[in-house]
């Protein structure tokens, strides 16, 4: 009951808030949704203590769901350490965001609907992390997709929000397609979708092959890569990342909750959850490492050039997710989960801080129109500093522990791809520090670039918006220090238990603790030089960035236009698809299917229908006659010998 409550309280909150929103009872809606999530968070703490600290794995049954033939999927909730960690992250950040939204959205008439969506999202996310089988995980997976669609497009009257929501949905479909294929492949391979059954004997499938149109491929590699494609879509990895920056059209609390702390990390969670399979797929692991590392550096380079405050943070998220993936790719799943946890705190903090800035500047999001407000918003300013320090990985902040752990693990893997990932990660660390301070300086320091009228309205956000930042800030400062031993240190094996599986021959986690000193120091040096670089470029010599930009010309444009990914996709996929669709519609649909199908059928049905109405005369003897004809026809069928 206790465990079910964690998952279903947010759902109840969402339903109640949705009903209240029909009657415009905003305060009631806020009260139920916030209390649902907060209670769920408190329960999660107990669950964490029992499951993760106590080392007990709980499987709680909810209902028998689909039993069809050999396909069996029961609705069960699985609480192991992996889930418990995610529970804390999801409900914790969600609680902060719920409370923050009360202030941030208070002027919006549809706040009740917003709270309902937020709670619905939380429920779906909890379904995802507590899933005991792949179908249920997929349910949560799609649930968060829907909630994300609703929230990105929350201001549906804005054309751009609308388009962004569609884009997020469609791009995610590509990943989901891979995911579904992966689930099907697992089902054909193992005959089950339940985790326990799948993981029971993965080693025995090592030599299994999947034959597809004559080509035999190693089954576990195929499965792993398909699942990773799903993860790429949700976690905005290079290639399927284009939706994430656009998703910033949603209200800022949404960006903090969904597009920084929780939903986008679902891909990382999936990879860790499926570690017993992926561990046996060396090629897939290499692919994950390469994609993760490329994303990390790609997003960091783009982040340097953007001017929308939220987009900068969005690219930073993309980049940090890349770190998590390449950590998973070198079998350092604990490090990935560790970074996931710390990142959730400081990235949510940064987003909510950015929201506070936007709020203070009357909904201004462009960095070029900010600056010089740091005295007026001291709390927000402090919070942004904390977040940035943690993000850049300065010593003793949360990011320091987790990001360094990842880089050390990549180095410690002693493989070719591991080294590539290490160097790309280091470069990204430098860029991260650079763009973080670029953001801080442009947003808070220098001459005010906003209009005088806007500046006169600049004010610190109300308590309801600043208070939720405090727990997040505490997390951003202390989470790394507090969690280090448990997540990746000496207590690692006991902490994770069976929830993560690492092949004994993959020693990156162990080797990470024994890397040369320069590997440990390098990230700090890089971060410091990044900060210095930003200081020089934006405070000491404010004309330098423009000069560099014009000097590099094409390269700058290349970065500024996000490596032309959107244009490329538009050219390769969108336009041909529109043309092809148009052709199909004219020739295929209208010309063939409609002509013979619906149009032809409806004409036939229409004729038949009027016939029937004609027969239905209302005379009893006609009816009786029809009955007798029926009997005689049935009898004749047997007498004529057909019935034998």
């Amino acid at each position, binding site marked *: 009951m206790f465990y079910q409550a964690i998952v279903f309280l947010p759902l109840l909150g969402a339903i109640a808030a949705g009903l209240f929103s029909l009657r415009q009872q905003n305060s009631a809606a806020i009260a139920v949704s916030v209390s649902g999530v907060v209670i769920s968070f408190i329960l999660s703490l107990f669950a964490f203590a029992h499951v993760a600290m106590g080392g007990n794995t709980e499987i709680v049954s909810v*209902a*028998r*769901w*689909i*039993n069809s033939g050999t396909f069996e999927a029961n609705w069960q909730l699985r609480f192991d350490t992996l889930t418990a960690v995610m529970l804390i992250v999801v409900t914790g950040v969600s609680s902060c965001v719920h409370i923050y939204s009360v202030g941030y959205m208070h002027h919006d008439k549809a706040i009740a609907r917003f709270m309902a969506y937020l709670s619905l999202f939380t429920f779906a996310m909890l379904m995802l992390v507590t899933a005991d089988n792949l179908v249920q995980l997929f349910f949560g997976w799609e649930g968060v997709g829907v909630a994300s669609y609703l929230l990105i497009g929350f201001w549906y009257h804005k054309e751009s929000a609308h388009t962004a929501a569609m884009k997020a949905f469609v791009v995610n479909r590509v990943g989901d397609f891979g995911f579904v294929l992966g689930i099907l492949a697992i089902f054909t391979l193992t005959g089950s979708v339940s985790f326990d059954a799948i993981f029971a004997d993965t080693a025995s499938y090592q030599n299994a092959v999947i034959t597809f149109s004559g080509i035999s491929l190693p089954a576990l590699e195929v499965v792993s890569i398909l699942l990773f494609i799903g993860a790429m879509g949700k976690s905005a990895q290079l290639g399927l990342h284009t939706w994430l920056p656009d998703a910033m059209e949603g209200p800022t609390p949404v960006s903090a909750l969904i597009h920084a702390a929780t939903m986008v990390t679902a891909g990382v969670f999936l990879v860790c959850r499926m570690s017993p399979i992926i561990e046996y797929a060396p090629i897939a692991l290499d692919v994950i490492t390469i994609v993760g590392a490329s994303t990390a550096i790609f997003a960091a380079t783009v982040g340097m050039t953007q001017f929308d405050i939220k987009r900068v943070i969005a690219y930073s998220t993309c980049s940090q997710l890349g770190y998590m993936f390449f950590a998973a790719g070198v079998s350092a799943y604990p490090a990935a989960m560790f970074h996931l946890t710390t990142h959730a705190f400081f990235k949510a903090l940064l987003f909510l801080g950015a929201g506070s800035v936007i709020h203070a500047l009357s909904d201004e999001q462009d960095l070029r129109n900010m600056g010089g407000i740091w005295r007026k918003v001291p709390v927000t300013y402090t919070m942004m500093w904390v977040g940035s320090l943690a993000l850049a990985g300065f010593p003793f902040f949360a990011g320091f522990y987790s990001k360094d752990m990842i880089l050390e693990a990549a180095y410690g893997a002693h493989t070719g791809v591991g080294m590539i990932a290490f160097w790309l990660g280091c470069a990204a660390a430098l860029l991260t520090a650079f763009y973080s301070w670029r953001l801080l300086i442009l947003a808070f320091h220098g001459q005010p670039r906003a209009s005088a009228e806007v500046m006169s309205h600049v004010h610190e956000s109300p308590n309801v918006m600043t208070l939720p930042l405090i727990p997040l800030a505490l997390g951003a400062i202390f989470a790394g220090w507090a969690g280090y031993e448990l997540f990746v240190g000496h207590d690692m094996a006991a902490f994770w238990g069976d929830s993560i599986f690492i092949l004994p021959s993959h020693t990156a986690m162990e080797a990470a603790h024994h890397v040369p000193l320069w590997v440990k120091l390098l990230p700090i040096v890089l971060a410091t030089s990044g900060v210095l670089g930003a200081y020089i470029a934006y405070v000491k010599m404010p004309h330098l960035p423009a000069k560099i930009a014009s000097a590099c010309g094409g390269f700058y444009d290349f970065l500024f236009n996000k490596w032309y990914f959107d244009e490329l996709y538009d050219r390769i996929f969108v336009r041909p698809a529109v043309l092809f669709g148009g052709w199909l519609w004219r020739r295929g649909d209208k010309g063939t299917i409609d002509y013979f199908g619906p149009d032809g*059928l*409806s004409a036939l*049905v*229409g004729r*038949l*229908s*009027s016939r*029937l*109405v004609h027969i*239905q005369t*209302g005379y*009893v003897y*006609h*009816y*009786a006659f*029809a*009955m007798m*004809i*029926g*009997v005689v026809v*049935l*009898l004749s*069928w*047997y007498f004529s010998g057909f*019935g034998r």
Partner: protein
Amino acid sequence: MEFSQITISAALPEFILISLALVMVLIAAFAKQTETDGEGSIKLVRTLSLLGYFAAFLALFSVPDGRIVLFNELFAVNDLVIYMKGLILVGAFFASWLVSEQWGEGVDRPEFHLLVLMAVIGMLLMVSANNLISLYMALELQSLPLYVVAAMRTSSLKSSEAGLKYFLLGALSSGLLLYGASLVYGFSGSTNFEAIASSLSGGASVGMIVGMVFLLSGLAFKISAAPFHMWTPDVYEGAPTPVTALFAIVPKVAGMTLLMNVTYSAFGNITDQWMQILIALSVASMIVGATGAIMQQNIKRMLAYSSIAHMGYALAGLAAGTSEGASAVVIYMTTYVFMGAAAFGVIMTMRREGTPVEKISDLAGLSASHPLLAAAMMVVMFSMAGIPPLAGFFGKWYVFLAAVNAGLIPLAVIGVLTSVIGAFYYLRIIRLMYFEDSDAPLDDGASHQNRMILIISVGFILLFFFGIGTLSQEAVSIVSVYF
């Protein structure tokens, strides 16, 4: 024959309802004589009948498990029978609950509830029939009150016509059934189902098959399967709306169960033979139901065709002749009862300036004036059209699955095609409610019981998919008595 503990507990629901019916006869009669305005007595009678259904439902739990044969093997209960009795009682409860005391249309009399109660007794006995004679008697006990209530609105010519038509055609169908029964008796030497089944162990003679054709034709009339369906639209339209609701919700369940009993237990050895009849009936019903509804203007008439189509789908499951098919029918009938209750829950709130309206076009603009009611109707229509994940979808899904697994692929294909056609007129109602405006909105204020019924039945439809796993396993286990 002795009355033992078993007798009492196995037939307890029937005992309760019969005793109650006799008490109600007295109440109805004496309340009339003392001229206490009728008003009080109808309230009392209605409440009593609702309590009776409830008590009978509870009494079902006292029926011992397993197969029990009573009254000189004329009466049998087993798990399937108990489940279906429960379904009938739930449906009857809904149908009686829907009728408020002031409904009018001739049903605001104690006799209405009394006759409905009698019909329900008939249905329960019908479901338990284990002999051709008790089958026929129970069938008549069920039909006779229904003929009367269909004509209950004595001030309306249409209602009288409906009652008369139903009666005449019902008499014809009884004739067919009796003729068939006499042939079956003649060729098997017994009227007992088990004895008939054992006489068929070496295959069927021509006479048996002819008898079976007549017998099944008579039963097909009761579930309004085409081509024995002609009465349905006229009776549904002519009868007072609460009576139509009753017709739509309950008797079909009893008829379908009886059909299952007869085919699986009496003719269980010649499955190949009766399958063909059921396939023919199923195909005809699906086509007639789906196409006939399109042109209708009256919502009751449309639902009549819709129920013909539903029976076609259920028959498709029965025609599969497998345990899977039988369990699909159980699931289908379960969803059918709740969809019927929900649909009439909406229709019976449709009033304009106090008088009930029943044209489909009266639903126009319902979403604007009554958003919740329109939403409920939308759910029901989607469910009837078989849109996942609503209850109606699962009913169809299991039925078609059973048909396909039994090798009846053409039947399943026709079924899917006709559901597509059927979706047209269900969606038409949704379009009317949501995308068209009306000049004169309907009255406000659904009655309390209507609201409750809508909440229960629409909730059932919406949440059905949580229980489908349990229900489908339950269904397989309760039909296992026949396999």
